[in-house]
């Protein structure tokens, strides 16, 4: 147990990086996922096709492979991102998570009756106005719980970055485990606790929202 206490600063540093990876990738994935979801319900077929292809590709590719693509393959095709490994990790996590965000939002959009969109279009609202004024506000409640599940998965998925030299919580755990072969169990317990802080907080928010939704229905 001492191993945790002794290395608290290292843990905190790792935790802080994991938290930042989650927040940055989460925020970006939310924005991109929202755009993708809008494209998936767009009246324009090419838009729908692009978004559907993107989602299927990313959702069905192992995250580690996405990292490899960003770090190793993309540069060969001339995509040179002026980023360090943390930057690459944010990009990979964002692109991967956006696919799941899109699906969560799309299921929320589909939960709103088609008549709502038709009525909005019938009074002359554009596609964007229909989405913003009528569909998304009603989809919001149904979207929050699955969306938070996506962010919980993201928080855990950030640990893949440790395999690419990022010293996040997981990366810190690896280093400490190498340095303290006798205390591996406790080192990893410390790592797990760090992730739990993030995921349990997110879960609590989800539960809170679900209770609110239950009330207002």
């Amino acid at each position: 147990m001492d191993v945790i206490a002794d290395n608290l600063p290292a843990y905190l540093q790792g935790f802080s990086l994991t938290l930042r990876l989650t927040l940055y990738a989460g925020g970006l994935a939310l924005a991109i996922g929202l755009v993708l979801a809008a494209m998936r319900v767009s009246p324009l077929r090419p838009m729908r096709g692009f978004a559907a292809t993107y989602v299927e590709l990313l959702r069905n590719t192992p995250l580690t492979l996405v990292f490899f693509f960003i770090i190793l393959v993309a540069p060969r095709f001339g995509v040179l991102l002026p980023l360090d490994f943390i930057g690459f990790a944010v990009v990979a996590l964002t692109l991967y998570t956006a696919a799941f965000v899109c699906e969560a939002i799309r299921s929320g959009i589909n939960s709103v009756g088609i008549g709502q969109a038709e009525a909005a279009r019938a009074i002359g609202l554009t596609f964007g106005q229909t989405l913003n004024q009528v569909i998304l506000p009603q989809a919001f409640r149904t979207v929050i719980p699955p969306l938070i599940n996506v962010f919980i998965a993201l928080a855990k998925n950030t640990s893949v970055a440790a395999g690419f030299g990022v010293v996040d919580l997981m990366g810190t755990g690896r280093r400490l485990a190498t340095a303290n072969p006798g205390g591996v169990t406790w080192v990893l317990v410390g790592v797990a606790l760090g992730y739990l802080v993030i995921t349990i907080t997110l879960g609590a928010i989800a539960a809170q929202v679900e209770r609110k939704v239950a009330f207002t229905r």
Partner: protein
Amino acid sequence: MAPEQTSTSPAPDLTTMGEPLVVLDGVNKHFGALHVLQDINLTVHRGEVVVIIGPSGSGKSTLCRAINRLETIDTGTISIDGQPLPAEGKALARLRADVGMVFQSFNLFAHKTVLENVTLGPIKAKGVKRSAAREDALRLLDRVGVANQAEKLPAQLSGGQQQRVAIARALAMQPKVMLFDEPTSALDPEMINEVLDVMVSLARDGMTMIVVTHEMGFARKAAHRVVFMDGGQIVEEADPETFFTAPRSDRAKDFLSKILTH
């Protein structure tokens, strides 16, 4: 082709009725193998009230929905006030603003108050000032008899009240023509008349209306013309009195005998 005048139909006002407002020319549409609209030609004149009647599945809703392009068509043209329906985009949104639509299932925006339901279109689609839109909406809600419900959510209203709000919402856009797709079919019997009364008064005020309904009372009171559809085709057109008392086609006779025995 001005509709024939009968004792029970309102006199067509020749100063406002005459020029074509909604013109469907050779319209065809398929749903897969189903030929749901078959070479439809229909002209509705300004100020005219046309009732579309026909068996379930004959394509009445599809016809209505095609007129404000909630459904696309395969061939033919549809134009509103001389303008062909544009493809998706801002131009289509503008054109839809000119065509009011009332649905069988009301489709009021569930998360917005009655007042907000009515002001949303004018504010967002027409750029009307919030205060002006509010004033206008309250006047319209008063006209359809639900002004005292303005701050409620749709779910708190009865079906008849919701449908009247839906009519006010469509009117708020100052449409050139109003489409009604079985506006009273989802209503409890005791609420049907409160909605029909609003529609009759609209018709009396000279609104151009295309109404899918089996309410013969409404057709007799307000319609200039009845269009009978069956199997995706317009089978017969006549003024209401002629249609209900002396239909020409066997299909219309058959249909009328069924709805009259109910």
